[in-house]
C-alpha cells in the first residue's frame, strides 16, 4: 500500500533522514521504533506532506505522493495523528471532531463517523462541548485519534501516541488501535514505548540516526538481542510491575 | 529580510567605492561656484538632506534590524528645537543646530527605552503611533506659522544651506562607514541576527540597540535642523509628518537597506525621479515608488545596489 524508497528529508536546515526505504502492506500494523531524535517524527511528517523530501519517492497504491500538499494526502486516505496531538485547544471536542471530517468524502459520512467515534471513545461524547485544551492527556489522545478517524483514513499514521500518558491509558489506547486495525485501517506507528508497540505490531522497523537499522516481524523484534538491550531495557521495574 | 550583502571584500572594489564618493563630494563642493541656478542647488540640497535622513534611518533599520516607523519624530524634534532656539531665542545657529540633534537624542532615549521592549512589528507600529501622537500634540500647541525674522530673511543665502546639507550627508555616510568597523558593531549585528542568541552570549541587546538609536536620532535631528535652517516659513508640525519617515524608508529600501551605498543611491534616485515627474499630475511618483518598493521587497531585497552588482557580474561573465 505504502512504499517509501530512498527518501531523504531535511528538518530546519539539517538533514534528518538519510536514504530510508520501507513498506507498509494493506491491513498491517507497522511500527517504527528508535531513540529520540532518530527521525521518526520527520519521516511521519514527510509521509503526511508537511515536509517535502529532498530526494526519494513516497508511493501510495502505486502513485507518488511525495510532492503533494498535506491536504491532498488526507484526501487520499492517509491521516496523521501528530506528535503532541496538535488539537485545536480553543475549540470544543465536538468542533475538533467535526474538523476531522473536513474533506468532502468525510463530510458526507460525518454523522455516522461521529457516532462510531463516540462508541469507541465514550468519554468524548461526555465531554462534547468542553474546550479541547481542558481535557486530560489520555482524553486528548483519544480525541486526536477520534478526529483522525473522522477523516476516514485507510492508512492511519500515529506519531508517539503514548507520549506523556500513564501505562494503563496507553494500554487502552493500543487496544483501540488493535480494534481499528481489525476494522480495516492500516496503521503505521512511530513509538518510543517499544515494548507495547512491538506487541501490537505485525512488523517493525528500527530507525537510528535517520537510517533503517533493522526490521522484522513483531515477535522477531521482541526476541532480538539488539532490540532487547537497546529498547526494551528502557522499561523500568516499576512499569513492569504495573503492567502485570 | 535577507542579511545585508557583505562589505566589498575584493581589493579593487575597496578603492573604487570610496574613490567615486570622493570625486562626487569634490564635485558637489564646487557646484555652487559653477552655477547660479537656484533650482539645481535646491535639488542637490534636497538630495543631501534625504541622504542624511535615509542613512540615519538605515543605521537603525538595516544595521540594527529595527524598523522604526517614527523616524519623523526625530526629524521634527530637531527642526523644532533648532528653529525655536535660533529664531526666537537668538541662539547662534551652530549651537541651535547641535542642540536640535541633542534634543532628538534625548527624545529618542526617553521613548526608546520603553519601546525597545517591543519586538518586530510591534516596535514598528508602536513607534508610528508615538510619532503621530507627537505630531498631533505639536500641531495643537504650535498652530502658528514659524517665519524667519526680517534680518535673517534679508540676508538669506542658499549657499550655506547647501553646504550644511552636504556636510551633514557626508558625516552621516562617514558614520555609517565607520560604525561596522568598530567593536560596537559586532554587538549590534549579533542583535540584528538573533536577539535572544546575542543576549545568551552576554551581549546587552538593549544597550546596543540604544547606541544605534542614539546615532540614528542624532543625525535625523540634525537633518531636521537643516530643514529649519532652509525654510523661510512653515507650520511647525510639518517636519513631524509621517511622509518624512516613509520617504526615508522608500529611499533606503529602493537603494538597498543595510548597505552603505543604498541610502545614497536611493535618496538620489528618489529626489531626481520625483523632480523629473513633478510635471506630471498629482504625485504619480508616489505610486511608482510604491510599486518599486514592493518589487524590491519581493524580489530584490538588496535594492538598486544589488541590481547594480548583479548587472556588473553579468557583464563580467559575458566579456
Amino acid at each position, binding site marked *: 500500500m505504502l512504499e517509501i524508497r530512498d527518501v531523504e528529508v531535511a528538518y530546519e536546515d539539517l538533514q534528518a533522514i538519510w536514504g530510508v526505504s520501507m513498506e507498509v502492506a494493506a491491513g498491517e500494523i507497522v511500527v517504527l521504533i528508535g531513540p529520540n531524535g532518530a527521525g521518526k517524527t520527520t519521516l511521519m511528517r514527510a509521509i503526511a506532506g508537511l515536509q517535502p523530501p529532498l530526494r526519494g519517492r513516497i508511493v501510495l497504491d502505486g502513485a507518488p505522493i511525495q510532492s503533494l500538499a498535506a491536504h491532498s494526502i488526507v484526501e487520499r486516505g492517509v491521516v496523521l495523528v501528530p506528535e503532541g496531538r496538535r488539537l*485545536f485547544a*480553543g475549540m470544543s471536542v465536538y468542533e475538533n471532531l467535526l*474538523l*476531522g471530517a473536513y474533506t468532502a468524502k468525510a463530510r458526507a459520512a460525518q454523522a455516522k463517523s461521529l457516532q462510531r467515534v463516540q462508541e469507541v471513545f465514550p468519554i468524548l461524547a461526555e465531554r462534547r462541548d468542553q474546550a479541547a485544551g481542558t481535557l486530560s492527556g489520555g482524553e486528548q489522545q483519544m480525541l486526536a485519534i477520534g478526529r483522525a478517524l473522522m477523516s476516514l483514513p485507510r492508512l492511519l499514521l500515529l506519531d508517539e501516541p503514548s507520549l506523556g500518558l500513564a501505562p494503563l491509558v496507553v494500554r487502552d489506547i493500543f487496544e483501540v488501535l488493535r480494534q481499528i486495525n481489525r476494522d480495516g485501517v492500516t496503521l503505521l506507528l512511530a513509538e518510543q514505548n517499544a515494548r507495547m508497540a512491538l506487541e501490537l505490531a505485525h512488523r517493525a522497523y528500527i530507525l537510528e540516526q535517520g537510517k533503517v537499522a533493522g526490521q522484522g516481524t513483531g515477535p522477531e523484534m521482541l526476541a532480538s538481542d539488539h532490540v532487547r538491550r537497546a529498547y526494551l531495557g528502557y522499561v523500568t521495574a516499576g512499569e513492569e510491575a504495573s503492567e502485570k | 529580510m535577507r542579511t545585508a550583502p557583505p562589505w566589498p571584500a575584493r581589493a579593487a572594489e575597496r578603492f573604487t567605492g570610496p574613490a567615486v564618493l570622493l570625486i562626487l563630494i569634490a564635485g558637489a563642493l564646487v557646484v555652487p561656484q559653477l552655477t547660479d541656478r537656484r533650482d539645481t542647488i535646491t535639488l542637490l540640497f534636497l538630495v543631501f538632506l534625504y541622504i542624511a535622513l535615509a542613512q540615519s534611518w538605515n543605521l537603525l533599520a538595516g544595521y540594527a534590524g529595527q524598523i522604526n516607523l517614527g523616524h519623523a519624530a526625530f526629524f521634527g524634534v530637531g527642526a523644532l528645537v533648532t528653529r525655536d532656539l535660533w529664531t526666537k531665542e537668538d541662539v547662534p545657529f551652530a549651537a541651535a543646530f547641535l542642540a536640535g540633534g541633542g534634543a532628538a537624542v534625548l527624545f529618542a532615549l526617553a521613548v526608546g527605552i520603553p519601546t525597545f521592549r517591543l519586538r*518586530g512589528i510591534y516596535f514598528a507600529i508602536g513607534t508610528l503611533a508615538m510619532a503621530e501622537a507627537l505630531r*498631533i500634540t505639536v500641531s495643537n500647541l504650535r498652530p502658528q506659522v514659524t517665519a524667519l525674522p526680517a534680518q535673517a530673511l534679508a540676508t538669506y543665502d542658499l549657499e550655506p544651506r547647501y553646504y550644511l546639507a552636504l556636510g551633514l550627508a557626508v558625516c552621516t555616510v562617514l558614520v555609517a562607514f565607520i560604525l561596522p568597523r568598530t567593536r560596537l558593531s559586532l554587538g549590534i549585528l549579533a542583535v540584528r541576527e538573533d536577539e535572544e542568541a546575542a543576549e545568551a552570549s552576554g551581549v546587552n541587546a538593549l544597550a546596543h540597540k540604544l547606541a544605534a538609536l542614539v546615532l540614528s536620532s542624532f543625525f535625523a535631528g540634525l537633518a531636521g535642523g537643516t530643514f529649519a535652517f532652509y525654510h523661510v516659513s512653515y507650520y511647525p508640525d510639518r517636519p513631524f509628518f509621517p511622509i518624512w519617515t516613509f520617504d526615508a524608508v522608500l529611499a533606503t529600501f529602493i537603494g538597498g537597506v543595510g548597505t552603505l551605498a543604498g541610502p545614497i543611491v536611493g535618496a538620489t534616485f528618489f529626489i531626481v525621479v520625483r523632480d523629473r515627474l513633478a510635471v506630471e499630475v498629482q504625485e504619480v511618483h508616489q505610486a511608482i*515608488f510604491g510599486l518599486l518598493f514592493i518589487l524590491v*521587497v*519581493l524580489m530584490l531585497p538588496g535594492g538598486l545596489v544589488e541590481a547594480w552588482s548583479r548587472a556588473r557580474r553579468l557583464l563580467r561573465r559575458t566579456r
Partner: protein
Amino acid sequence: MNLEPIFQNLVYGLFVGGLYGMAAVGLSLVFGVLKVLNVSHGELLMLGGYVSFTLFDAYGVDPFLSIAIAAPLLFLVGLGLHGGLFRWVMRLHEEAKIKNSLLIGFGLALVLENLALRVWTADERAITTGYSGEGVTLAGIVFPYTRMSGLVVAFMAVMLLHLFLTRTYAGRAIRATSEDWEAASLMGINVQRTYVVAFAIGTALAGVAGTLVSLGYTIAPSIGLAWTLKALVVVVLAGLGSIFGAFAAGILLGEAEATSIYVFGASYREVVGLVLFIIVLLLRPQGLFGRRVR
C-alpha cells in the same frame, strides 16, 4: 447640573466606536489567520468608501444598499491583492513573513492612495442623503438616523461574521488555520486557499467600514493612515482571537475618546487612542480580551 451634553457625547462615542470596531474586525481577522498585519487596511477602507460614494453620486444608490456592491467588490480586490502580493510572503519564516508583509502593505498603501488621488482627486467627499440630518430625539438626546443605522449595520456584519466562523465548515477551517495551520492541513484543509479567503473577507469588511465612514465622515485619499492606526489601536486593545472583542474594544475606544474630550479637549482626541495603544502594547500585549500571550 446639565447631564445632557455628557450623555449626548457618550451616545456619539458609541456610534463612532461601532465604526472603529467595524474597521478593526477585518484587520483582526487577517492578522489572526495569516499572522500578517496589513498596514494598507485603511486604504482598503478608503476604497470601499469611494465605491459607495461613486455609486451614490453617479447613480443615486443609497449607501446602505451599496454595501451589497462594495463588499463583494472589495472581496474580489482582496483576492487579487493576496494572489498577487501577500501570497509570496506566506511561505516565509514567521519573522521574515511579518516584516516583509509590513513592508508590502506599506508600499501597497502608497500605490492605493495614489490611485485614489488620480481617480477621485484630493477633494474630500461625503455622502449626504435625504435623511442625513434627521434623527430621533429621546430625553433631549439626539440619535441621528445615519449613525444609528451605521451601528446596526456594523453589529450585523460582525454577527454574520461570527456565525460564519462558528457555524460553517469554511469558517471553522479559518479558525482552525489561525490556531494551528499545520494541524489544519492535516484535516484536509487547503491552508493556502484559506489564507486567500480570510484575506478577501478582511478586505470586504474594510470596504463595509469604508461605506459607513463615507456616510458619517469624509473620504479622501489621505485618510488611509489614520484609519489604519485606528484599527490597529482597536486590534491591540482587544487582543487576538475574538471578533466580538474587537467590536467591543472599538466601542470602548469610542467612549474613551468621547470622555477624554472633557479632560484634554477635542483636539487631543486622536492622541488619547494612540497613547492608550502604546500603553497596552507595553503593559498588556495580549490585549483586553485576547487569549494568547504574544
